[in-house]
């Protein structure tokens, strides 16, 4: 599904990411953890081709993401606020994304109904621009914007912060259900609890280098906590 070869990114002389080889298979749920500056956002940004790699490439379904736009049809992503259009209302925003995928307004509305619980009655029909919403509600809009076209690959950078506790639980449920249906998930998180609950594979980045890559099992959370505790001392 997604492969990185000799992928590096540098700012000036500082290499912030160096991944010689990484493959994420179809239907996998891939969790990326690491401290600030570990390169999580950089890696995701390279996958969705919004920054340029110093060397190497990312391939999605066998084609380089730089060379072709094919991945945009089946990849839904939300990395930060630049994925929102803050002067639109949430309805207009979803309508815009829907129309890019050729949905009729009806289809968009029907698909949004799936997320009624997740929205918690605070997003739709409020006559507010996205820029007037709280951080948490903005994040919900962004995440649903990424999920709306029912993509085969979903990429979310830090989806849990700012969400209220019930929404976090709902989001985890939504993501697990998607993965059960065969959707490939790529999620980064600071919260080891959440990410180990959702993802079956956890990769630890440190200063741009993969230092751990394993299947999630009953001990994973404990191991990760121990690993980061060592770094805190």
């Amino acid at each position, binding site marked *: 599904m997604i492969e990185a070869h000799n992928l590096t990114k540098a700012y000036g002389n500082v290499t912030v990411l160096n991944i010689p080889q990484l493959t994420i298979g179809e239907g996998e749920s891939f969790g990326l953890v690491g401290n600030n500056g570990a390169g999580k956002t950089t890696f995701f940004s390279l996958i969705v081709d*919004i920054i340029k790699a110093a060397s190497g490439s990312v391939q999605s379904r066998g084609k380089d993401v730089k060379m072709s*736009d094919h991945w945009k049809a089946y990849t839904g992503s939300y990395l930060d606020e*630049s994925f929102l*259009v803050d*002067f*639109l209302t949430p309805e207009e925003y979803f309508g815009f994304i829907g129309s890019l995928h050729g949905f009729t307004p009806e289809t968009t509305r029907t698909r949004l109904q799936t997320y009624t619980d997740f929205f918690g009655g605070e997003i739709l029909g409020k006559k507010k621009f996205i820029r007037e919403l709280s951080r948490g509600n903005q994040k919900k809009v962004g995440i649903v914007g990424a999920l709306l076209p029912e993509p085969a690959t979903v990429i979310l950078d830090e989806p849990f912060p700012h969400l209220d506790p019930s929404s976090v639980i709902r989001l985890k449920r939504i993501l697990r259900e998607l993965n059960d249906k065969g959707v490939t998930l790529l999620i980064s998180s600071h919260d080891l609890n959440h990410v180990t609950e959702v993802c079956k594979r956890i990769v630890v980045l440190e200063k741009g280098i993969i230092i751990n890559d394993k299947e999630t099992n009953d001990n994973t959370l404990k191991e990760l906590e121990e690993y980061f505790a060592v770094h805190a001392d």
Partner: protein
Amino acid sequence: MTLWLFQHQWKSIRRSSDFQSKVAANIVFGLLILVVALEFLLLGFFLDRILSRDLPPGSDSVDLVDGVLIFYFGIDFVLRLVFQKLRSITARQYVLQPISRKEIAHFVLVKTLGTTVNFLPLFILIPFFFTGVLRIHSFLPSIAWLVSLLSLLLFNTYLANYSKLRFFTNPIKTFLAVGVLVAVVLLEKFQVLSFVSFSALLFGSVLHHPFLVFAPLLASAAMYGINLRFLIHHLYLEDIVAGRNAKSFREHFPLLSGFGEIGTLISLDLKLMMRNKRARISLWMPFVMVFYGLMIYQTENLDKESAFMEFLLMFVGTFITGFFIMSYGLTTFCYESRHFGLILTNRIDMFTYLKARYYFMLLVTTLVYLLSLFYVYYGMRVFVVNSLMFLFNIGCSTFFFLYLSTFNKSKFDLSGSVFSTQGKGTNQFVAIFLLLIVAAVPYLAFQWLIGGKSGLVGLGLLGVLGLVFHNQILALLMNQYGRRKYIMSEGFRQT
């Protein structure tokens, strides 16, 4: 404590990402101000002599000045309503800190004083005070006069500030204020009411009864107090940040939705421009600029056959229809800097994306051209030149500005001031100058090879060629866009 509030201000300027371009812009702006200040200074020194040349019997130069002061302060107030900035936004990050509200309010109000409208008049006032007022009147009344004028400047500053905070929250009311001012001038002109004699009486009385100086002094102090009280009670985040909300915008463009993806993208940009203060100018200015020709055509002999006249007509013609291209075309990507991530990762075909930009310019420019057809009143020559320049604009200027816009890579603050240069990497004036050079090359080539009117016709023909082959040219532009998109994307991500 207040001192470090100002230190933060300086740091925010010094450390902003476009500090260098700001410095350059400020140097140019500063030089301009300096020239104006010098002229004002000279005017101030010689004002007494100029006015004393032919005085009505029984009056002096100070009386004349007193007579117009009421207009000065009226115009000053209206200008402030339009241009004076509300500084409360600068207090945003301090509201949450353990600083007393009173202190922040003082800080905001002192910052409000820092505007050229407050400093420039001093360059006339102070020299005139020494050369004129002191010459005619004795010391104490003169000082009283000066102090009352300075207090009135302060009074106006804070009255405008307060009015903007409370009443003049939308432009229509500001237009009303302008209307009142125009009415006053008309009443004076048709001698219904004499504001001049009223003004002379008012300001003259300070010279005769110096103790009256306490009236404006107290008034300005009171106005400061009113502002202070209001700010102390309203320095809450929701008051400061509140902009226009979604309730006031319900626009829909059903016509555009018939045009598929291009229509969707154009309607997104239309909404962007309607809902963001700084971008709105791109939408209404082109329709104001249509009338730019009126200023030139009336004063010139339009049938004169000279190279200069031809250049002038071409220049005017380019501007009448080309303003939208020059404004929107140049900022098209950086207007989208805040949602560029979405643009890059969503299912938007990059060719369609550029094409939407081109069609949008084509649409508005054509509308403006249709509106400009009334210039046929000034004769066939104007009509022909304008039409040829319209063709040149839609077939050449469009691509030229789209090309230049890929070099803008700083994040654009859509909610900022309309006059701010923040985020406009390529200066509009530089861009227009470049366009003139680009247009001059084929123009001169045609003139040199064929002569006659061929230069002008040639530009029009180039425009037609551009229009016919727009798909091919856009494909070339797409390569340029593909090269620059990472640089733009990384630039837009820096805050």
